[in-house]
């Protein structure tokens, strides 16, 4: 029987996480084991039941669409890794 293996590079790319060769190996094995464990869900008789998104019967809870006082710029930026002229500094993304 052939066992399906996780495409670790594809998943890591989707996650935006760079992996070392060591991590590729360990995580591939561990994720294969975990997915095989999750496969037992395929044996449950789910009939026509609805998927549950959350436990409560809450729908579209929205606040009034009114402006509120928020952080001053310097507070909003205080955790930015790099900043300049009251803006977050990032590498050039458009040539």
């Amino acid at each position, binding site marked *: 029987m052939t066992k399906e293996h996780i495409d670790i590079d594809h998943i890591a790319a*989707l996650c935006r996480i760079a992996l070392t060769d060591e991590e590729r190996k360990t995580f591939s094995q561990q994720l294969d084991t975990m997915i095989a464990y999750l496969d037992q869900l395929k044996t449950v008789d789910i009939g026509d039941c609805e998927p549950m998104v959350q*436990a409560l019967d809450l729908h579209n809870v929205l606040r009034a669409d009114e402006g509120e006082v928020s952080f001053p710029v310097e507070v909003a930026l205080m*955790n930015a*890794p790099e900043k300049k002229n009251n803006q977050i500094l990032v590498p050039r993304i458009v040539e």
Partner: protein
Amino acid sequence: METLCFESVENLSQMLAEKAISSVELTEMFIGRIKNIDPKVQAFLYLDEERSLRLARASDERRAKGQTLSPIDGIAVGMKDLIAEEGQTLTCGSKILEHYISPYDATVTQRLLGKGAVLLGRLNLDEFAMGSSTETSAYQKTHNPWNLEYVPGGSSGGSAAAVCSGEVPLSLGSDTGGSIRQPAACCGIAGLKPTYGLVSRYGLSALASSLDQIGPFARNVADLSMLLEIIAGHDERDSTSCNVTIPPYRALLKNTQQPRRIGVPREYFSEGIDGEVRQAVFEAIEFFRAQGHRIVDISLPHTPYAIPVYYVVMTAEASSNLARYDGIRYSHRSREATDAMDIYFKSRAEGFGSEVKRRIMLGTYVLSSDHHDAYYVRAQKVRTRIREDFMKAFREADVILAPTAPTTAFKFGEKLNDPLKMYMSDVCTVSTNLAGLPALSIPCGFSKAKMPIGLQFIGKDFHEHEILSIAYQFEKAHDFIHQFPPIN
């Protein structure tokens, strides 16, 4: 003076009211205790002495003017480093947030400050609350005060160990799959996960948004009730917060106990449950029977699927929630990165630990287009079945009684490299998060190795008062709250 460190909040509050002690003296005592024993326990990531004493002085001034705000005015509280306090660290136990400072208070923080609590500092946890032993913290290993060679449980291991060791009488943690109840069990204290929606999640760093709840730790049920009363209640800033009336939990404890139907789910006593744990829980069942309650044998047939459902739903939500740590607006930015895409890949590679990477990848896998229906949607459907099981059981039972954790605390390294083995630590707790129900843990015995055993009570939606009062009845008839860990 340190003799007061294990005193109940009820008594401390009384002493403050009688002016037998001041909040400054009390706070200095707890700070001294932390300095004395935390090098061994390592529950605190950060202790803010200056602010603590400032809050304590303000409390004493209010009291002098007769303007005391609540029974916890002047009482020290510790916070899991996943709950925002303005101007304090919010590492989430991760290197990726090593230098992050909260720009605002969580709603629970505001409520505590509004009632005069003295916030002491930040407590250790598994990285982003992912773990059952607090070993995945990027900063330090918290030790179980009952035996320093053992883990305190997790993920709120710092919050549990600090209360257990008398470093602080109250603390807050968060529970996504057992992260309050399991460490409470491992440390022999009381911990409660509220009904989903009872306590605002505003300012709680999200792990899995449909499962996360903030909840209290204390050394006894009365103190636990008092803290819950303060943090519970509707909050417009959390769209999943429920607008329900908050009962006076503490006052209700002392009501005469009507006979209850106590459901015992047979699936929670399978071979995976340690013999000593099973025995202690059986003795608790006999206690309740002798008190005139009716013990009902119930079945929650989808229990064996709770862990797989949980690891699909939780990792899916976590992979989405943790996408925000991109190294752009806040969080660690790699120095090696050359372009924007490189910032994401390298910052996340450097900032996250193994368990976090593993869960983000698993969550991404179950959400990816090829596997979405087979894993994610299917798990959501089985989740419906798990809640239906409970709804059926609650037709025959008023509360459900079960072990909190399958074993007592384990040793460092015992499960760290075997993710599935670690995940089984939550086998008795995850179902209630999936179903949204309230549940609490109190101590009900000790193993031969003198490690605490936890007893879990699960209630109907928003019936915290019911599980608290029945737990209180057990606590009053036993001596566990007067047993303290051998740490000095």
